[in-house]
């Protein structure tokens, strides 16, 4: 796995580059932009892959200039903030978006590395099952969340967002790690089943509402907690050190000293199982 800090590498000769032909506010759905779909294909074959421009079925070649062949490394350039589902369900390779990304980017992915130089839309990494997503900017609502009607959100993997995120980050997440360096919106970790949400900036109001298990870590200012959480004690969580070591290895500029405890531990939500925890850095 590559270094998160230098993941947004300049375009290399071994990647397929997609360059948006023109900017448009019309939504595009392009889940075919995935290392799994591109691997082994020529430029012509990639250009024939389908996409939706609004409700019209088009090809990637209609929307993008394509350069490069036979690889599972993809670079996307130009304005793709209205392009949905880039890297949707990807299982391998690397995908770098050099700019802002649209909604559902990296949703359901189970492997590989996805890097976004700018901001990401809603549903970033929704229901992902593995791999790494690294966002240099911020992200919208429901990061790593579960789609409506689905029982479980993110199930494995790592999402790092350097900016702020919107509401309900980690909605119904089951496993995995979400790291937000900026602020989180309302209801972070709502209905969490398990997993870890690490918030280095301000943790939004009412964190962990309805959570059964799982961990929300608040390193910023003390969050507004729901009454269904009880104070449990003050301690130095060793497991958090393991996470930090892991993130340092991944290239995130953190230090053990920066995140050294102690932490106040609140357990809840007692309207649910009550086995979740919110750790608030002292």
């Amino acid at each position, binding site marked *: 796995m590559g270094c998160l800090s230098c993941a947004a590498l300049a375009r290399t000769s071994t990647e397929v580059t997609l360059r948006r032909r023109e900017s448009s506010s019309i939504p595009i759905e392009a889940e075919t932009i995935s290392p799994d779909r591109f691997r082994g294909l020529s430029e012509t074959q990639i250009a024939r892959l389908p996409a939706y421009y609004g409700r019209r079925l088009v090809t990637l070649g209609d929307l993008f200039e394509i350069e490069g062949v036979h690889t599972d490394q993809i670079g996307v350039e130009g304005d793709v903030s209205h392009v949905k589902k880039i890297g949707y369900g990807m299982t391998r390779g690397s995908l770098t978006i050099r700019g802002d990304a649209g909604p559902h980017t990296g949703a359901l992915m189970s492997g590989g590395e996805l890097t976004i130089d700018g901001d990401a839309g809603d549903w970033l990494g929704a229901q992902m099952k593995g791999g790494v997503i690294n966002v240099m900017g911020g992200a919208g609502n429901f990061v790593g969340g579960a789609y409506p009607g689905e029982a479980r959100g993110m199930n494995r993997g790592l999402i790092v967002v350097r900016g702020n995120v919107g509401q309900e980050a980690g909605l119904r997440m089951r496993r995995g790690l979400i790291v937000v360096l900026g602020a989180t919106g309302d209801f972070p970790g709502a209905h969490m089943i398990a997993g870890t949400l690490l918030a280095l900036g301000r943790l939004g109001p009412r964190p962990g509402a309805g959570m059964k298990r799982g961990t929300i870590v608040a390193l910023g200012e003390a969050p507004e907690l729901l009454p269904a959480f009880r104070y449990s004690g003050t301690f130095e969580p060793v497991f958090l050190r*393991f996470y930090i070591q892991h993130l340092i290895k991944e290239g995130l500029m953190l230090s053990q000293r920066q995140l050294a405890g102690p932490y106040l531990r609140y357990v809840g939500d007692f309207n649910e199982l009550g086995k979740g925890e919110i750790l608030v850095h002292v």
Partner: protein
Amino acid sequence: MKYQGVEIEDTFAEAFEMWGSRLIITAATPGWAETAARVATGLATSIIGCGCEAGVNRPLPPERTPDGRPGVPALFFTTSKEAMEAQLLTRVGQGVMTSPTSACFNGLNVRERVKVGSRLRYFGDGFQVSKYVEGRRLWRIPVMDGEFVVEEGMGVRPAVGGGNFFIMAETQEAGLAAAEAAVAAMVEVPDAIMPFPGGIVRSGSKISSKYKGQHVSSNTPYCPTLRGQTEVELPEGAEAVFEIVVDGLDEGAVRKALQAGIPAACGDGVLRISAGNYGGKLGKYQYHLHKLVRG
């Protein structure tokens, strides 16, 4: 051949296939990490009587441990994977989990694992918490000073046990000094341990006995006080013999440890360096002393 005036016998050490595991034991301070690791690897000198052979490697700085705290690698060797699981369960449960501020992580990057944390978690009485990060599952078990963090599975791999050499000296004092010098050189070799007290064994054994039910007995050919009573294999003037036994996670670790130890043992008062074998019939690995010394 002679090395620094000491006779190196033309023989070989015979070593055996074992299963090895490496744990990283951490704690809030270097002292407590060392204590936990020493206790977990305690009374593990010989597979014959202890069920496993174990020892520690040089301490690790915080930046090289999984949780960024001071750590000590602890190595364990058994004859089977099943035995490894049983030994680790007991030793981590009784020696590490009980030790203040400790945590225990897998230190081998291999696919084959034995269950440790996944069994110890039941100590948590329903309050244990699982954390899964990049293919590694940790168990957080509530204990009276906070939490004991232990990794679910510990890696095991085929390893090598029973590398050895004998130091035959004019006096007990000279022999012990030579053995200590050898161990001091050998502890610098990673992935190898000398499981006996201080790395040195004085009660070497042979695998026979005159008594029924007794499978091993005193290594009489190397006991100086038995001269005149039975056949001994000692050079003239040798009054003390010390053996150093080495286990390693691979063949190379044992070889490097022997290569470090044998020259270091060739000091004042040492008459001969020899090694134990079974004629090459029992062990898969042979370490010829002359080749080791020549490098």
